[in-house]
């Protein structure tokens, strides 16, 4: 017998138009979630059984550690814009938290570039 929870897997996503998943809301502040903003589930035992199935899947995916917004969208097979709306709601309700992406400051770039180069060299020789 199938548990009620299992009847609402991500397959159901394809049966509804994207804005239905976001309860008709438009896009949130686009600056809050970048493609590479790193997201994880907040610590603590939060009940997810009353969340929409897509939000529940998202929180579950993020329980394992940090992932970028793009990876979350890829794994859940949802458009980026939809994932941003879901994340915005979940962050507000305390289910997920983020790490800020690299600031575009010049100084940070110099250091990041050196680390990228060193990392690539170490990995690929």
């Amino acid at each position, binding site marked *: 017998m199938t548990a009620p929870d299992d009847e609402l897997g991500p397959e159901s996503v394809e049966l509804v138009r*994207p804005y239905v998943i976001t309860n008709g809301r438009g896009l949130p502040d686009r600056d809050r979630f970048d493609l590479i903003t790193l997201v994880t589930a907040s610590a603590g035992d939060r009940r997810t059984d009353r969340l929409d199935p897509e939000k529940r899947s998202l929180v579950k995916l993020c329980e*394992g550690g940090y992932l970028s917004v793009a990876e979350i969208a890829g794994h859940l097979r949802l*458009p980026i814009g939809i994932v941003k709306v879901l994340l915005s709601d979940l962050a507000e309700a305390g289910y997920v938290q983020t790490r800020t992406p690299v600031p575009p400051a010049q100084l940070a770039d110099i250091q*990041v570039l050196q680390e990228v180069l060193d990392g690539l060299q170490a990995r690929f020789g």
Partner: protein
Amino acid sequence: MDSRRALGDNVHLPEKVQIAAKILVVGHFAVGKTTFIGTLSEIPPLRTEETMTQAGADVDDLKGIRGKTTTTVAMDFGRLTLNERLVLYLFGTPGQQRFVQVWEDMTRGALGALILVDPQRLRESFAVMDLVEKYGIPYAIAVNRFDGTPSRADEELREALDLLPETPIVTCDARDERSSANALMALVRYLQSRTR
């Protein structure tokens, strides 16, 4: 499709990762972007889609047919954890002018772009080069060598693509890990030289 397909052990980032950086891998259709990303990525490349609704007036080929149209743009991307605090994402996307919304998202915070070109189809690279330049993203050219492709002289390419004298041109085989990594490193060295 099994929605609960098991995710591998290395899906999530190591706990200490603090910084995410982004480099774009761009080029025309079928130039080898996804192959390049797949060769270097530590995870199987993922695909995300952005759905856009546009007013019909902005879409030349559908003008007059209906008021609105929805376009889906796919982006393939991969990931490389480069040290315990830094992860690099490689994003590949096609270069159509009308996907402006996606380009704004993609280019924000990007360190630079590697433009893959096929020497036999140079003209097809012009549109994507225009976009990269429009968004002010510093770039290097990587000539993806397909089997049996005769190499063209760098100077010939530089002239055909109207490149600045300092823009790097590297040759790579997108299927080869080392060759692809070398192309990426050439871009990073160029980006470093610009910040000095």
